[in-house]
């Protein structure tokens, strides 16, 4: 496969190798043949779930389509060579290394990718242990019960004779506590086992809302078609178990409906075809507030947008109200994110749109173009302090020449050195 071929061309080449018709592949991945044709001729950007689906249908890794096999290997080797405390001296000889020792190069690249996966696992677990109230309460319950058992068992095991009534009492307590420990252990195991049922996955209400939105790919065609209402969608969502989660989801969908009425999908898509996805240009074209456009783009289907998009909305405290992940960009599920994100810079400058190219430390050098904006949410009034919210749209950077700003995910999993914004030390150093 040629090194500098574009993604669409690689898809076309692979499809032809397999002898698949354009219409057949399009049907398999749920898009029209004409849209696939645009992708194959590199006239539409492709990423996210659609790319994964096409790669699956073509029997290759998504990176084989976006970068080609050789480029994927070289990129992994360059990352491995440049992410240590000091970049390896022979970084400029990566291609020579890969061609002279292809086997070792593959081993090194695979190990590097594996380290990335493990670091992300540590990040999620650490995040969860630190901030998840249900997990903390469960562990506290187990330790308290263990303390009662240990103390009672100490007394029963001592050589000093016990009066019969104390003996009965302590036997009874021990029995009760053993039962409690068994129950709380089972609860903890089912809580940690995320694989099977929705009930097992219940955490905080925001987690339920995140799952609900992710399962809908952050887009609600039934709301757009007005065949469903926020209330009916929430009522029939199996992901939303708690009343608090239902209330949060209802608010999100009502906001979605409000923005949708200001900017119907058909109109917005015609604007994107004309001006692209730059939110400022779209707001100007349709004469609507910038936040409406940004919130609308943040909840669009990738197929409609023609690109992947991530979105984070937060309130003035920095707490995330909405998290739509994208690619390798890490958005902490619990606790505070990196204060260097343009989202938080926008909070300090309401009504001033910010555009930044960023690179998240430790995430394989992928660049993103971020648009961030903060606005006064809620009704204005004399003698009332405004409520501020901010939104950040995150797009994959394509051929971006601008030097990226380096940011992290959260301090605990960020190894940026000499960072003035650091709140706490990282857990990823010193022998990890």
């Amino acid at each position: 496969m040629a090194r500098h071929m574009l993604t669409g061309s690689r898809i076309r080449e692979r499809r032809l190798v397999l002898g698949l018709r354009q219409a057949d592949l399009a049907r398999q991945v749920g898009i029209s043949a004409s849209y696939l044709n645009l992708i194959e001729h590199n006239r539409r950007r492709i990423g996210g779930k659609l790319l994964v689906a096409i790669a699956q249908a073509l029997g290759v890794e998504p990176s084989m389509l976006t970068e080609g096999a050789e480029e994927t290997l070289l990129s992994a080797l360059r990352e491995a060579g440049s992410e240590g405390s000091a970049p390896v001296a022979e970084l400029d000889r990566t291609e020579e290394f890969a061609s002279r020792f292809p086997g070792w190069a593959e081993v090194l690249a695979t190990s590097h990718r594996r380290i990335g996966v493990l670091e992300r696992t540590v990040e999620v677990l650490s995040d969860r242990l630190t901030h998840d109230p249900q997990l903390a309460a469960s562990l506290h319950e187990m330790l308290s019960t263990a303390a009662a058992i240990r103390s009672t068992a100490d007394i029963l095991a001592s050589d000093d004779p016990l009066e019969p009534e104390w003996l009965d009492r302590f036997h009874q307590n021990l029995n009760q506590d053993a039962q409690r420990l068994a129950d709380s252990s089972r609860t903890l195991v089912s809580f940690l086992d995320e694989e099977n049922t929705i009930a097992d996955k219940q955490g905080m209400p925001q987690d339920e809302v995140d799952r609900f939105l992710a399962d809908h790919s952050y887009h609600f065609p039934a709301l757009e078609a007005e065949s469903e209402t926020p209330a009916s969608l929430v009522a029939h969502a199996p992901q939303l178990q708690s009343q608090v989660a239902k209330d949060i989801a209802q608010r999100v969908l009502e906001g979605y409906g409000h923005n949708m009425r200001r900017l119907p999908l058909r109109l917005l898509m015609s604007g994107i075809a004309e001006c692209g996805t730059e939110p400022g240009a779209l707001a100007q074209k349709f004469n609507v507030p910038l936040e409406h456009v940004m919130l609308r783009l943040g909840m669009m289907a990738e197929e409609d947008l023609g690109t992947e998009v991530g979105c984070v909305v937060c309130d003035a405290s920095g707490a995330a109200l909405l998290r739509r992940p994208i690619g390798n960009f890490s958005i902490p599920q619990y606790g505070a994110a990196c204060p260097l994100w343009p989202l938080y810079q926008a909070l300090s400058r309401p009504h001033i749109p910010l555009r930044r190219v960023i690179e998240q430390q430790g995430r394989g050098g992928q660049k993103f173009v971020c648009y961030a904006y903060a606005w006064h949410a809620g009704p204005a009034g004399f003698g009332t302090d405004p409520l501020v919210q901010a939104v950040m749209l995150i797009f994959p950077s394509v051929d971006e020449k601008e030097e990226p700003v380096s940011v992290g995910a959260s301090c605990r999993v960020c190894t940026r050195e000499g960072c003035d914004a650091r709140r706490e030390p990282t857990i990823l150093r010193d022998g990890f």
Partner: protein
Amino acid sequence: MSRHVVLIEDEPNITEAIRFLLLRDGWTVEAHADGASAVEFIEAAKPDIVILDLMLPGKSGLDVVRELRERDGAQDLPVLMLTARGQIKDREMAEKAGVTRFMTKPFANAEVLTAVRDLCAQAEQR
């Protein structure tokens, strides 16, 4: 006259075990399970030492000890904190709040007994 311990703990079986342990060692023990009224309970009981859980209903053990240290006559009262939260930051917060000694659950009875005896002896020497 026997020395007097107040135990603020909301786990009844821990309370029972510690109460038994201290009674057998010659202490009088009064127990209380609520954080919100703990300071008043301690003030009324006038103990020689307090054993205090960190996570209590109504008010945390840290808030209880902070309030206690502001009351007349309770600035030097020995407080032994028992908690399931044993991270360094929890220990530092407890010390800052005015806890005399910090012990993590699950504890050994002998450790609790030794700590209670030591803390009382140190307080008497002052």
